[in-house]
Structures are given as C-alpha cells and as structure tokens.
C-alpha cells in the first residue's frame, strides 16, 4: 500500500466494491444487517454519513432463506395504500411465495438510515432468488462475504467415523431391535 502512487492509493481507498452473499439456509435478518453495514459504508474507516461511500451487495439464493421459529406463519407484513379497504396483511410465507426477494429487501430497507440516501443504497442492493447471476454482475464481484450462520449438518451428512467419535453419555435403546421382548424386561426386573 505504501508503494502506491497518490492517485492509485486514492482510487484504492474510495473505489466501490461489489460483495456477494449466499443466503441459503441463513436467517434473513442477519443477512440484512450485514448488507446494511456494507451499503452504508460503515465497514470502512473513512466512513461519513454524507460521503456516499457504500458498496454494492449482491445476495443470491434469497428463495432459500430460513426463518427461525414459526416466523413463516407468524410474521406478518402489513401495507396500506391509503385508500379505504386496502389494508393488506401477508404472512411471511405468502409474501415469499409472491416474491422471493421481498423479505430480504424489506428487512434491508428497514435497517438502513431513514434519510434520502436510503433509496440510493437500496439501488446498490442486488437480490437474486437463485444462484443464477447475470454476466455483468458476475464480472463486477470482488469479494464473497462469509455466511453469518453456520449451517448445521443433517445426521445423514455425518460420516460413520464422526458418529462413532461423538461422546455418548448413555446408549439409547433403539426400538427397531424389538427390545420390548422378554430378555430386556427380564434385565430391568433383575436390576430392580
């Protein structure tokens, strides 16, 4: 960095980067908070609210986000156009079915500062429901951000060695062996 010329150093400091996030199996709120930090430019030491130094963020696989708890049925997105009788309430599941990018878009919109720069920052957010990205965006990408949530593996994804190496407190009774039969009950009675 110290070997750069002044103009090259300035370009490197103030250039707008393009970040990529994969939202598969991620909570949309965490994705949105990471996006909002990058869109505002708060990840840069040269941050200033008036400077317009936010970066572009591309989010892919928004169709495969994962709400925790029962939010798919319980979280409600409300809207009112101002005309009488136009109060609409949609659950997260309905909203997601209608538009797979809407949940993350609304989440990021709510996390950005509520001023005139918000719309500009939203224009720098690019959402794609699947991992198919257009060429011009693919060419611009500079960095991929790590996913905020570590995706837990299914039991079938663990190898047998890992399963054996896992510390067990007690040996569970597998009912598939038909342990309701006589010898097992005889053992319990003898213990008692």
């Amino acid at each position: 960095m110290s070997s750069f010329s002044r103009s090259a150093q300035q370009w490197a400091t103030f250039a707008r980067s393009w970040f990529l996030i994969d939202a598969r199996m991620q909570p949309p709120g965490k994705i949105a908070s990471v996006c909002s930090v990058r869109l505002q430019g708060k990840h840069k030491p040269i941050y200033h609210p008036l400077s317009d130094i936010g970066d572009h963020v591309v989010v892919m696989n928004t169709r495969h986000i994962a709400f925790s708890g029962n939010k798919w049925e319980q979280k409600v997105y409300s809207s009112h156009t101002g005309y009488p009788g136009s109060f609409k309430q949609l659950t997260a599941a309905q909203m997601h079915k209608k538009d797979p990018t809407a949940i993350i878009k609304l989440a990021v919109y709510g996390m950005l500062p509520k001023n005139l720069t918000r719309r500009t920052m939203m224009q720098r957010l690019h959402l794609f429901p699947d991992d198919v990205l257009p060429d011009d965006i693919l060419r611009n990408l500079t960095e991929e951000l790590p996913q905020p949530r570590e995706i837990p593996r299914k039991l079938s994804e663990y190898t047998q060695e890992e399963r054996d190496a896992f510390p067990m407190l007690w040996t569970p009774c597998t009912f598939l062996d038909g342990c309701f039969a006589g010898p097992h009950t005889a053992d319990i009675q003898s213990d008692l």
Partner: protein
Amino acid sequence: MTRMWRHVAGVSALLCSKSGFTGSVIMVFLTLSRWIRNRGPDRYWKVQELLKSARHFRGRKNRCYSLAVRAVRRAFVYASKARKTKRHSMRQLWIQRIAAASREQHMKYPALIHNLLKCSVQLNRRALCDLCISEPRSFKALAALACARRTEGFRAALGDGSHPPGVFSRITQPITAQHG
C-alpha cells in the same frame, strides 16, 4: 425637560374653544425644537453590522433589517447550541470509524478500547481515528496488542506460556515460571 409656556395675548376664539380653554390665552411650546430627538449618529453602521451576518440568508431576511434581526438572532442561537453537538457528533464519528477499523482487524470496538485501557495506552478516540485512517499498520499493531491483552488470561490458564509474536509486554518471564 422643562416646559416653558408663555401666555400670549390676541387669542383666536376658535382655538380657545377647540382646546377647551375658557381663558383668553394660548400656549406655545417654546421647547418644540427640543422635541426633535436625535436618536444617535451611527444607526447606519449598526444596521450594516447586523446585516453582514445575514447576507447569505435566503429571501428578504438578507436585506430588510426587521426581518434580518430575527433571523440573525435565531442563527446565533443555533450556532451556540451546535457547539456542544459538534463535539458530540465528532466523537460519535470517531467511534464509528474506530469500530470499522477494528472490525477489519477481527476485533470489536468495546474490546479494543477496554483492552487498550488495560494496557494503559492513553490514546484518545481522535488519535485512534487518525491512526486508523492514515497509519493502518500502527492501528493493526494496536489491535494486536489489545487482542494479546484480551487473551492473556486464557493463555495463562490454557496455553503453554508462550507469548504471541510481535507483542511487547511487561511480563518478561514465561507465565509458568511465575506460577511455579
């Protein structure tokens, strides 16, 4: 102001009746000349001094005295109040910048500040902000120092007594020797 009155003969009956005097006299204010008040010779300059603070305002406030007086007073009040908020907002900006730079170094702002304080590094937020913008490697070294101070307890309990490379500390002997 003393009033000098003089009774004048040869009165007009109309004047008497209008003024309500029943007598045959009329009063003349000989001090009329004194009633022309000279309010001060330098009004023009006082007005100009006020208007010069209003020249960059919008509308008639930048030209007309009575409108400018109110606008200039408000402007001065806002300026007085803003001196305190300027200090507040500058500190806020420093903290945001230091937080961004420390997150680049895989640390969080409260951890950085607390551990630098524990190391008795008395750099204030303004100095840290200037360092993180213009001296990134110095800031990286400070972040490494804070990280080392933060994990000092863990390393003493769990580690093998070795120090993290590149960090000077007051502990000159291995930690195990102290416990031993």
